[in-house]
């Protein structure tokens, strides 16, 4: 069950947009960070079930943050949100061990789809133990 969601994006508007795409009735606990460094700190404090990450950020960019988080928690479920989905960028992202990619500008239905897939993945992992 997804209870806690961490949103890492330097654009307050992007964070607002993502929040509005999340279903309100699931009682998710949300946490936000405005750059890669803050994102890592919050990850350790908050221990989210799911993390949304923007790729282009100041201080520490998305790729570096993803690396750092996966080193801390190899089971971290990270969804990258980006507008640039070129093949080259995508292969880099996939190799970084990201769970899925959310294309900007985001739409509620795609966010829902991702949530469903993450729930399924968590169930699978729980069942597997």
């Amino acid at each position, binding site marked *: 069950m997804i209870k806690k969601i961490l949103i890492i994006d330097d654009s307050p508007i992007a964070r*607002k947009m993502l929040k509005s795409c999340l279903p309100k009735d699931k009682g998710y606990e949300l946490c936000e960070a405005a750059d890669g460094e803050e994102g890592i700190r919050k990850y350790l404090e908050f221990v989210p079930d799911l993390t949304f990450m923007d790729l282009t950020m100041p201080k520490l960019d998305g790729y570096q943050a993803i690396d750092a988080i996966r080193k801390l928690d190899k089971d971290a479920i990270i969804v990258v949100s980006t507008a*640039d989905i070129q093949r080259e960028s995508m292969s880099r992202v996939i190799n970084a061990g990201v769970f899925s990619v959310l294309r900007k500008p985001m739409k509620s239905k795609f966010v829902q789809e991702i949530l469903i897939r993450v729930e399924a993945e968590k169930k699978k992992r729980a069942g597997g133990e």
Partner: protein
Amino acid sequence: MGDEHEYIFSDEEKDILQEIMNIAFGSASADLGDVIDIYVELSTPDIQVLDVGDIPSYLIERMHFRQKETSIVAQNFWGDFKGSGILVLPNKAGRNLITVLDDDQAGLDTEPIAGQEREVLMEVGNILIGACVGKVCELLETFVTYTPPRVIHDSGNEYDSFVKSFDPSQAAIIMETVFKFQKVDINGLLFIFTNQEAIEWLRKALHNFMESYE
């Protein structure tokens, strides 16, 4: 001078504009790869509001390289969203692009290089400017019409009269991105100018955009 413009956009409006530009330029990058078959990377756009009179010195400062060593492609567009797009490339870029775009142009070996280069620059400028402006329009649910692109030579006259063509009583919003072609090592600058007239419409359009995310 700059103070009057503080009130053109509120902080929140600036943030929305920034995010829209991020999305527009990011997805333009993505689609460009398919269209021109070359991987292009557009940097996160930097947005400034300037007095039209400050534009020349701003351009010179941002272009880093001196006027003589650059090629400039300019294009106008009109509609709800009105303005100009300018592409600034180092002089050698034209030639490198010819070899990379590698097509029937190569058959035109008898055509002087200068002519081919010019055409390639205009074509690339047309596509890049169209990609960025096009994506912004898509996000803001509008469309624009474009004039043919033109190459502005570094001969003082053309450049000056181009700059003078902006209405001095107005302010301009400049959105600047650095783009890199991966296959060929070319870095350049892309500017999109729009003036005060478009700002009222832009403000409304920004709020419309956010409506679905409230």
